[in-house]
Structure formats: structure tokens, C-alpha cells
């Protein structure tokens, strides 16, 4: 029961965060010193604009406008994108872009963690020795190369020169798993290198601290091998920072991978954000940012739950929270 009340509290906290973020964005929108209706309908008549103003709540104050937007948003009406020829639903755009971004994010995280964990374990175990120095220096060098530069190199060599992989476009899973993956490999590599460096560094530091703990000496005095001590005794209590950092980067990977999405023409949510800004589609921007915030909050919740499994002490602290 105590735990349920903890989770209710946590969810309430996150909802408040969501409301504050979306209200903030909404307020910023109203502060832009332009007439929003004119921006959205540059060629329409004043009468048409008046109708739009009423429909979107531009005629109301900031709070009235926000409440109207929020009412629509929770009912799944994310607003429209306005063209000279007509309109398109933001929700349709997101329904197309979201799976692309979620899959790109998921692959990137899985690859980054799968590589960073063994590297972190080895470099903590060999801290200060050659293997550690090689890993640290290599990752530091790689992480100082911006991801678009890596992407360009991949395109030039893997895509064009050797023509091993397609350089452009997105193929949904339903059109064949291999085709789908082939299009994802280069974007995933470009996005994951920086994360691998970050994750390895965090895990290494936490593991080096944990290796000094008495329970490690205790484990050694039981006659366990170094391998077993590292993987079974040290890794788990050292992985909370890594987990938290992974949660934080998920939001960024969903909404912030604009450059990589454009370069490889995978056009996910990041590209939608970019398109909304470039096309001054402020309502679309507001709803898209809200959806990104929603995912961000959701992943934080997932990591909260996961840390309870990784470190049971955090579970019981919740009872007193």
C-alpha cells in the first residue's frame, strides 16, 4: 500500500512537470510578437482568419488558449499543419514519425549499452593500465567528433565508396526486417558513438568506487574469480548512474536527432520539430513538443521502476518517501 502511494505521488509529480512544460511552451508561443493567424493563413481572408482565431483560441488570454489546446490534446486532437492548399493533421504526421524515432532511439540505446557495459567493466578492472588507457583515449577521441561528421564519413565510405548500405530513407519493419535494419545501421552508429563514450565513463567511475568497497574484498575472500566478482557483485550496484543517464538521453534521441534524421532521410520526430519551426507551424510545434515531453516523462518512470530492480535499497527508500 505504501508503495502504491509512492507511485501515485511520483506520477502526480510527473504530470505536474508535463503541465508546466506544456504551459511554458504555450506561453512562449503567445509571446511571439506576430499575429499567429496571419502566420498560419498568409493568403486567407480576414474572415477566414477570424474563424481560425476562434477555433484555436487565439482570441482568448494565455490561460484560456492553453486550456483549449490542452482539452484538444488529451482528446488526441494535436492540431493542424496549414498549407496554401489546405491542412494536414499533426497526429497523422506524428503517427508516421514516432515509430521511426522510437526504433532509432531503441536501437541506439541497446547498441550503446551493449558496448559500453563491457568496456566500462574492463576499464574499471584495469583502471590506469593499458587496456583502460586505450579504451578511454579511443572513446574520448570518438566522442569529440560531432555525430554528423561521423555520419558523413559513413555515408562517404560505407554508403558510396563501398556501397554496402543504403544511404537514404526509412523502410518500415513491415516491409522486411533486413531492409529495415540496413537503413538503420548508419544512423544508429552515428548516434551511439557519443553515448558509448558517456556511458562507459559513468560506469567506469562508479565501478572503480564500488571496487574499493568492503563487499568486494569479502567476495574475494570467498574465493570467487575476478570475473564473477565484477559481473555479479560490482556491476549491478554501479549501474544506477548509467541507467539515469540513459533515461535522460532518450528524450534527446526522440526529439533532438534532427541532423542525423535529415542526413539519412529517416525523418522522425526531430525532423517534425525542425519542419514545424522552419514552416512557422506553431500549433504543430506546441503539440509535438508536448508529445516529446510525454515520452520523456514516461521513460523516466520506466527507469524509476528499473532502478528498483537493480538496487533494492531504492525500493524501500520509497516507502519512507
Amino acid at each position: 500500500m505504501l508503495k502504491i502511494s509512492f507511485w501515485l505521488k511520483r506520477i502526480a509529480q510527473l504530470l505536474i512537470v508535463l503541465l508546466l512544460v506544456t504551459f511554458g511552451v504555450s506561453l512562449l508561443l503567445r509571446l511571439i510578437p506576430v499575429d499567429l493567424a496571419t502566420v498560419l493563413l498568409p493568403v486567407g481572408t480576414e474572415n477566414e482568419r477570424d474563424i481560425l482565431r476562434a477555433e484555436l483560441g487565439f482570441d482568448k488570454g494565455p490561460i484560456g488558449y492553453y486550456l483549449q489546446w490542452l482539452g484538444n490534446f488529451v482528446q488526441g486532437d494535436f492540431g493542424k499543419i496549414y498549407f496554401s492548399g489546405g491542412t494536414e493533421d499533426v497526429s497523422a504526421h506524428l503517427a508516421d514519425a514516432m515509430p521511426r524515432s522510437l526504433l532509432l532511439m531503441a536501437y541506439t540505446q541497446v547498441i550503446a549499452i551493449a558496448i559500453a557495459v563491457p568496456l566500462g567493466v574492463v576499464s574499471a578492472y584495469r583502471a590506469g593500465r593499458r587496456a583502460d588507457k586505450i579504451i578511454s583515449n579511443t572513446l574520448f577521441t570518438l566522442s569529440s567528433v560531432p555525430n554528423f561528421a561521423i555520419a558523413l564519413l559513413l555515408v562517404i565510405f560505407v554508403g558510396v565508396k563501398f556501397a554496402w548500405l543504403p544511404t537514404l530513407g526509412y523502410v518500415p519493419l513491415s516491409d522486411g526486417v533486413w531492409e529495415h535494419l540496413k537503413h538503420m545501421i548508419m544512423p544508429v552508429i552515428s548516434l551511439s558513438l557519443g553515448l558509448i563514450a558517456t556511458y562507459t565513463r559513468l560506469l567506469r567511475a562508479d565501478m572503480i568506487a564500488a571496487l574499493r568497497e568492503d563487499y568486494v574484498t569479502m567476495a574475494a575472500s570467498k574465493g570467487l574469480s575476478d570475473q564473477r566478482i565484477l559481473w555479479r557483485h560490482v556491476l549491478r550496484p554501479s549501474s544506477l548512474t548509467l541507467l539515469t543517464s540513459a533515461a535522460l538521453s532518450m528524450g534527446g534521441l526522440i526529439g533532438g536527432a534532427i541532423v542525423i534524421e535529415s542526413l539519412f532521410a529517416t525523418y522522425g520526430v526531430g525532423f517534425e520539430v525542425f519542419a514545424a519551426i522552419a514552416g512557422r507551424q506553431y500549433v504543430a510545434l506546441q503539440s509535438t513538443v508536448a508529445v516529446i515531453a510525454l515520452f520523456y516523462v514516461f521513460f523516466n518512470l520506466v527507469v524509476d521502476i528499473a532502478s528498483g530492480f537493480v538496487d533494492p535499497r531504492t525500493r524501500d527508500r520509497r516507502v519512507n518517501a
Partner: protein
Amino acid sequence: MSSLLSIKNLGVNFDTPRGSLEAVRGVDIEIPAGTSVGVVGESGSGKTVMCRAAMGLLQGSNVQRTGTVVFDGNELTAMTKEQVRDLFGSGMAMIFQDPMTALNPVRRIGSQISEGLRVRLGMSKKDALVRSKELLELVRIPNPTAVLKSFPYQLSGGMRQRVMIAIAIACNPKLLFADEPTTALDVTVQAQILQLLRELREDLKMSMVLVTHDLGVVAGNTDYVAVMYAGEVVEYAPTTKLFADMRMPYTEALLESIPKIDHKSGTRLSVIAGRLPNPTDRGVGCGFAPRCKYAQEKCHTQHPELQKDPDGHLYRCWFPIGEAL
């Protein structure tokens, strides 16, 4: 009598930013089979480092160990890490000062006890858990089934220490290092744990190295006592002999510093005035000289050699107690 553990000229140096730190130097200790040997000294005198060095548990590239350690016919100091590891559990085991930090915080008690049984004795998971429960009963933990499923933070300090003892004795070791097993516990629990160790030692025919900063703990629980000061053994004698005929001024100061339970609080002397010498720069004379009430000129300029009475009583002092000046 043959020695189960024989430590000769053991030295441990740590490379630190402030220079080389000599935590243990020139230590000779014999643990005859079937006996309990106390190692006593103030905090920082090198007791923990000595025990861990004996077992080969000091990790890190900044550690240097010198001297020889022979356990049960095996010269540990000439063996590989893997070979020494094979002696852990059924040969040597250790319990640690703080049962909170020495148990893995994220793993259940059951898996922490049964792990050694599985890895060292090759038991199946099921058998190891059954045995773990028996071990918890052996260390007198009520409700062992529930404790097997608990995490360390869910147990009291005394219970955790019992769990740690269960882990250490799981594979029936010949020698148990108990590094301040009661220091982190309150007085009544301390007595229970010492009682438990005494009984286990008899039932399992274990030898023991009992480390403590409290001469009072040593009194009823050991056959021999080694007193350590600033990384060296400064007095060594059978326990009864030590209390009856103390030679070393430092040991006397330790004895005087034992808190007297019947004293009103506030009147107890709990520490020896002054501090241990700087471990990175030990100076030339006797390390205890600035704090010693018997100190004379010579003490400040010459390091005392280990002296031996005809009865084997060892001490490291120019002007031992009970000697006509």
C-alpha cells in the same frame, strides 16, 4: 607445535601521493593449529592491512607486499592469485569489521551465502540453499527462511554480523580471520557474537586470528596475543602471560585505556594521549616515544629491536616494564 599459519618478516607498502606509506613492517606471527591469536592495537596500527596481506586480499597497483606467508604447508607468497584463491573458503576465511559495508547491498542473503558453497564446493543451487539455511541456524538466526530472502539493509547490525559469520564458516575453514568482528555492534550484541565465535571455533575445530582494538575482547577469547603499534608487532605472549606480566609500555597504556564499565561515564579513559606516528615518515626512534611515560633519551634516537625473554615473551622496548633500570 606445528604452525597453521606462519608469517615471516611481512611488510606492506602503499604508494600514496604523500610518499611511501609503510603500513606493516617486519611482522612475524605464528598461529599454531587449533589456537586463537589476538591482534590488538589502536585504530590505524596496521591490523587490517596485516590480515589482508596475509590472505593476499590487498588489491591495487599501489600495494607492495614483502616477506613470506605459509599457510598449512603452502607458501602463499610464492603462489599465483588463482592458487591462493583455491585455499579460500575451506582453508582461510575472513569476517569484516562493518557488516553493513561487507555484505553486497543489492544481493539477497541466500545468494551471498550459497555462492561460496556453489563455487568452492561445487554444490547445486538447491543443495547450497538448504545448506545456507542450516548455516543460518548454526549462527542462531531466528527465522532463517525469511532471512535467506532478505537484503542486508533489512537486517539489524547483529543479524548482519551473524550472516557474515555464516558466510565465512560456510566451507568449514581451518583458519578464520575475524577483523574487529564486534566493533560496530553494541555491547550486549558484542558479547553474543564473541560467545558464538568461541562455540563455533570449538565445534568446527577452527583456528582464529581475532583482531580488535580492545584488550578486553582479547582476554577470554585468545590463547596468544600480538600487540601491534605503527605497523609493527611490539609485544607477543600467551594471553595469560601477557596480562600477568606485561613488558611493553604501549600495551600497558592500551590496558589503561579500556573503558571501565563500572565507572561513571565521563570518567573513563578511552584513548591514549597523543597520536600514532606519521605512517609515511616514521622517524628514527621508538614510534611510541612521544607518548610513552617511560621514554628516555635512547628511545628517541634508536629503534628498539625485538627482545625475547627466556620464556618466549617478545617485546620491542629499550626499557621494558618490570626490569631494574
